């Protein structure tokens, strides 16, 4: 299923959980793993300087500097690189989200992985310019599935036997469903189809009648059956669940209850300003909280 994998990394602690998973998947599928580091954000107009994302210093990037950064990466991942050889390392400069997307367009892969967010550090070079939003922007536009591993608890990629697919019934969710169904079939695992009726407006004083909530729960279950279950054909190891609540909380709880190995969902927000959706973004919250890897699929994937 995964012959080529791109792992975009800052080569810092923030990416350790993703790195562990990236190597696990690569080994399991004997995939070619490319580790890409966006080494600096251009910060001086047309000058040759970039601000190094690790050191925070303004540097003149040349081949020597790039080679030095590659060596740093090799040192940081020395242990993993010893255990698996089909790995290429690459460094480029630019705005992270854009360069990752450009890379994916030029060199398509079966799966891309992003390290954890760097936004927590006050002096993070990424933070104010493009930063914490890299995850959002890449997830929205990537042509391939993107796997996020934000927590140590989520970084154990063993046998996949429980997949949770979360839908908001968008077109992007259809693509995520197709991928989830294919994956469940290929690993002979269970597929849990899940939707959350969002009642978070109640916190703002908008009281919903229980009858209305229950009607929505019924409608969503019916919609899952109409829309997805009939496409599963002979596949029988599935379940359908609809809960009410704050979506990301319920998704994380559901995944925990089902002992999910993988959460698959679409990142379908239409909000243009990544900064303004950051806190509200369901997916980002799920990624940050789930105790399994989260796979974002937004568009149909070739078989």
């Amino acid at each position, binding site marked *: 299923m995964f012959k080529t994998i791109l792992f975009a990394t800052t080569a810092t602690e923030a990416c350790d959980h993703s790195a562990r998973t990236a190597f696990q998947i690569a080994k399991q599928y004997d995939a070619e793993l490319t580790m890409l580091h966006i080494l600096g954000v251009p*910060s001086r*107009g*047309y000058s040759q300087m970039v601000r190094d994302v690790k050191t925070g210093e303004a540097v003149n990037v040349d*081949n020597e500097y790039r080679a030095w950064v590659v060596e740093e990466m090799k040192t940081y991942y020395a242990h993993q690189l010893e255990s698996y050889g089909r790995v290429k390392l690459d460094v480029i400069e630019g705005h992270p989200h854009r360069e990752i997307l450009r890379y994916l367009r030029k060199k398509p892969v079966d799966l891309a992985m992003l390290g954890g967010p760097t936004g927590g550090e006050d002096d993070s070079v990424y933070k104010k310019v493009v930063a914490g939003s890299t995850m959002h922007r890449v997830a929205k536009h990537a042509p391939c599935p993107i796997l996020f591993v934000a927590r140590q608890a989520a970084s154990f990629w063993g046998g996949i036997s429980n997949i949770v697919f979360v839908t908001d019934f968008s077109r992007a969710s259809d693509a995520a469903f197709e991928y989830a169904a294919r994956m469940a079939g290929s690993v002979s695992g269970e597929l849990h189809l899940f939707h959350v009726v969002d009642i978070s407006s109640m916190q703002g004083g908008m009281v919903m009648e229980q009858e209305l909530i229950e009607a929505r729960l019924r409608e969503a279950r019916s919609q899952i059956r109409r829309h997805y279950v009939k496409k599963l054909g002979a596949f029988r190891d599935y379940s359908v669940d609809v809960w009410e609540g704050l979506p990301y909380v319920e998704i994380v709880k559901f995944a925990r209850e089902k002992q999910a190995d993988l959460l698959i969902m679409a990142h379908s927000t239409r909000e243009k300003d990544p900064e303004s959706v950051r806190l509200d973004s369901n997916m980002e919250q799920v990624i940050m909280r789930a105790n399994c890897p989260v796979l974002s699929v937004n568009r149909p994937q070739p078989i």
Partner: protein
Amino acid sequence: MPEGKFCNKVPVNTEEELKALLGDTGGKQYYEEMKHLDVDRDKLWATIQNTCKSRIRTWLEICAHCGMCADSCFLYLINDCDPVQVPAYKIQSTLGEIIRRKGDVDNAFMRKTMEVAWAKCTCCNRCGMYCPHGIDMGIMFGYLRGLLYGQGFVPWELKIGAGMHRVYRAQMDVTQEDWVETCEWMAEEWEEDYPGLTIPVDKPDADIMYTCNAREVKHYPEDLAEAAVLFHLAGENWTVPSEGWEETSLCMFAGDWEACKMQVLHVYDAMDRLKPKRMVGTECGHAHRATVIEGPYWAGRDDGQPPVECLHYVEWVAEALREGKLKIDPAKRIKEPVTLQDSCNYIRNQGLKEVTREIMSYMVEPGYFVEMNPNGEHNYCCGGGGGFNGIGLFRPQRNKALITKRDQILNTGAKLVIAPCHNCWDAIRDLEEEYKIGIRWSFLKPLLIDMVIVPDHLKPKD
């Protein structure tokens, strides 16, 4: 030593030479070689005799040394009113001196002159407004830069920049294939949210031919996508040329007159080939100055005008909002204190201040727009104009120069600065990085995308 390997009087004309020069990290060898570069005095004096026309000779002659230009110069003010920063002194002690000595100057003089020309003047032309005789030091420094470039005394980055234009006809290494591919990429990426969105390449007889800045293509192509979305929503019949799409001119900053002509002719050729009704350029000040205001003269056009009517992006935005092609959702107007950076190159030098204020009146909830002081044609340079932003050698001087703009912004109390100019946008970003005053900065396009009403027939059907 007469000519260095990197620092010499020969412009960069091939990709190989360009890569070699880029390989000299930070221009270390380049600047070392510059210390030994000979001045070709005969050539320098001959060039002056052929090119220094009556306007500049008169200006140098009639300067009364009254010093009224001093307070107009933000570099004079920010450097503790150092007399060597008085504009009249700066030009008289450099260009004036070269002419008085009939070109008989040495290496040390030329290197000192290079510093004055690129680190003590941003060619913002503000002094010209305050001189009782209308003497414009910015114009003269532009001319002086040409003399220096011809002798090889030019900052490393600008020799590279001018070389980029000579090799790629763009300020960065963006080839025609890269450009067309980026157009396709952005149209594909954004079409999902804006069904029917295209970036038409080489469409003849369009109403608008759009030109942009290679940095957008190279580093943040979203800007191109946003331009496409706004043209799409406004229902414009528009196109981009496959060649001649780069509006900027680092050669103008460098003083490479030959490359200036090459670059602007490339854009004019696209106009002749595609015959658009008008050209609209991106949110860039110097690009507009180069292609629309100075360019016709470089190209030797008798009427002093480009081949077709040319608009700065702010003019198109104001027109689209005025005529209702773009409509702003009143609920999404900016409702926080916001200020506007006036770009020297199209506000002071082309008088578009009313146009940008008109845009603010549509985009900002009444009561929230705060003018900088001074503003409009009196506004100070962002601190990074004229090439200052890009020159590593003069970074400390540039960072000090940013303090003027920093304090102007702080005095408005606004946390959002709209800067419809690449150089200004960069300078304001850098001043935040340097001084951390807690501001945000933006071009017009992303703000407009967030607040324009998408007509029902252009909304995605999901």
